[in-house]
């Protein structure tokens, strides 16, 4: 009996691998957090990429081949991301949509560049990723160095705080964007009274909040993700610390309202412009709706665009030689749901727009300024 069980598991594993090594499909890895505290963002990426793949397959695929999505989980951890990248290499996958968190994208992209695998991240905004002269690495999202100034400009021109604190989670993404904001506001003559890191997975922020309260801080910018900021908001409200909070797109997730409740009302968030509002996307948005999926997440459309760019490139160049593909991406422009896309030398987008939103306790949001 026991032996039978082992055999059947073994058979299942073989069957699973067999599906994966089907040579007649074009495999695209979707790499990002499927599990872990920021899995919601990974889900946005999957929703967008899968929709693009379905659409392309329904229209006949790429050069007669169907696209096959290979979902890989990096839990948003750099170590795990390297393991995922190695798996992509071993399974001979040549195209990656992902990774999601900048901290994972950075180490994984080293491997992709070495192995000449094309990687398009729809979510990583850390400038460091494209600062190394890589040829195979692209984004369909903006940069912290674009998002930071949008936040900074809003703080300087609209909020005009008297005592400003900037907190971050010491991760590549969070600290990166916090530093961008700090540079911007200091450049405009504002004083940052507190610039401090917290630990990822920290739960108790009461000491930090007491400190901000005693310094009379009236505005806090947080660079990081929603699980920590949600708790900071909740504990701030509890201590009667009523400063205004602001964060990057990493906090703009409906779970922040579940965690922080009423305390998330009025939170300022910079997010990519809402592509679902663009007139030319209305058909696509309806398609998402008909499948009961939410197209408004910040990474859904960028992920869709990433798959589309890969497919368009292979169709246009008629080859799966990734070096030729990458050259084509660099010098062409693509019409995607995130607008007309063209690339700089380093793989960054020529332009990408971030907008400031005001968050509500029921997890809806209102655009404040362009």
């Amino acid at each position, binding site marked *: 009996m026991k032996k039978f069980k082992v055999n059947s598991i073994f058979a299942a594993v073989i069957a699973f691998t067999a599906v994966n090594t089907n040579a007649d499909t074009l495999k695209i890895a979707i790499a990002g957090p499927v599990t872990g505290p920021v899995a919601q963002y990974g889900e946005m990426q999957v929703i967008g990429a899968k929709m693009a793949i379905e659409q392309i397959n329904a229209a006949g695929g790429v050069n007669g081949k169907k696209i096959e999505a290979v979902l890989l989980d990096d839990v948003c951890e750099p170590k795990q991301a390297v393991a995922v990248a190695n798996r992509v290499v071993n399974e001979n996958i040549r195209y990656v949509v992902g990774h999601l968190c900048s901290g994972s994208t950075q180490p994984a992209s080293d491997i992709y560049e070495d192995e000449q695998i094309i990687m398009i991240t729809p979510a990583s905004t850390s400038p460091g990723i494209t600062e190394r002269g890589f040829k195979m690495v692209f984004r369909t999202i903006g940069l912290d160095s674009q998002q930071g100034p949008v936040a900074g400009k809003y703080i300087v021109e609209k909020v005009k705080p008297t005592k400003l604190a900037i907190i971050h989670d010491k991760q590549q993404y969070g600290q990166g964007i916090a530093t961008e904001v700090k540079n911007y506001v200091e450049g405009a003559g504002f004083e940052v009274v507190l610039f401090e890191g917290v630990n990822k997975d920290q*739960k108790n922020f009461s*000491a930090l909040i007491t400190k901000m309260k005693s310094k009379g801080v009236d505005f806090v910018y947080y660079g990081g993700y929603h*699980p920590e900021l949600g708790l900071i908001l909740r504990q701030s409200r509890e201590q009667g610390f009523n400063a205004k909070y602001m964060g990057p797109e990493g906090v703009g997730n409906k779970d922040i309202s579940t965690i922080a409740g009423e305390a998330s009302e009025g939170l300022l968030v910079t997010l990519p412009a809402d592509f679902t509002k663009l007139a030319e996307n209305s058909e696509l948005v309806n398609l998402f709706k008909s499948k009961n999926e939410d197209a408004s997440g910040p990474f859904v459309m960028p992920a869709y665009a990433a798959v589309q760019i890969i497919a368009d490139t292979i169709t246009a160049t008629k080859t799966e030689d990734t070096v030729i593909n990458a050259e084509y991406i660099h010098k062409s422009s693509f019409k995607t749901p995130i607008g007309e896309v063209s690339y700089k030398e380093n793989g960054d987008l020529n332009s990408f727009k971030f907008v400031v939103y005001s968050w509500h306790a029921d997890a809806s949001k209102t655009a404040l300024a362009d």
Partner: protein
Amino acid sequence: MSQFILEFIQQIINGLTLGSIYALIAIGYTMVYGIIGMINFAHGEIYMIGAYISIVVIAALAMIGITALPVVLLLTLLMTIIITSLYGWSVERIAYRPLRGRHRLVPLISAIGMSIFLQNYVQIAQGARDIAMQPLISGGWRFGDAGGFQIYVSYMQVIIALVTLAFMILLSLFILKSRVGKASRAVAQDREMANLLGIDTDQIISITFVIGAALAAVAGLLVGLYYGIVNAYIGFIVGLKAFTAAVLGGIGSIPGAMLGGVLLGLVESFSSAYLSTEYKDVVAFSVLILVLLFRPTGLMGKPEVEKV
């Protein structure tokens, strides 16, 4: 009062809240070590399971229409303690008892395996997402003049401190006065001798695990109520901190675990306040190293005499 003093008092309150949780969990480490000389690395996960169960029970009670706060809290406390204790008991039966009498590294590895197993089991059973819960108990007291810095003590902070204190007293009385408590002290002193004198040592060890798990369950419930967010990995860091607290206070000593927990909470709170949040763990572990340099057995630990 000057603002500095008010702020200082607020940081003490913050530290005590944090320290109470550490202390509750630290007792589980210290009791198990005291009795079988083993570090139960799966204990942090028992606390995590306690937090999950408390949230599930609260949600279930709300679903069947029980919302009166005292009833909810009491039922949740009971259910959480019972179910979590079952986990603690099973972990001992499955992962440690079969290895009794082996080299002490063997159950240690088993404990690490159990810890990984429980994390993944909860993640698969409950989903990978963080589970968040709206605060059940909100509000608190404010002290100080309205214009300046006000000390804020939330009801939840007071509950955490009081519940911790109550369970500490109960546990101390139990260990000092009850028959089982006496037996467990005898087992801690000399297991073989206690066995020869007719004490069922296996049973005592089981009870130790159950008590440790029950206290971790209380900590899990308090944390679930206070922070309102759990995931399958919250046990790791807190477990590590509680273990540190146990070592700081003197591993094997129950009052030591209480003292170590509160001390660690205060150290973290003050280093966040007067240095930087970034350095709070650095300071906490530096204090641990300093204490161990001068008192290798921790603050309240007895020097270990090698038994011949």
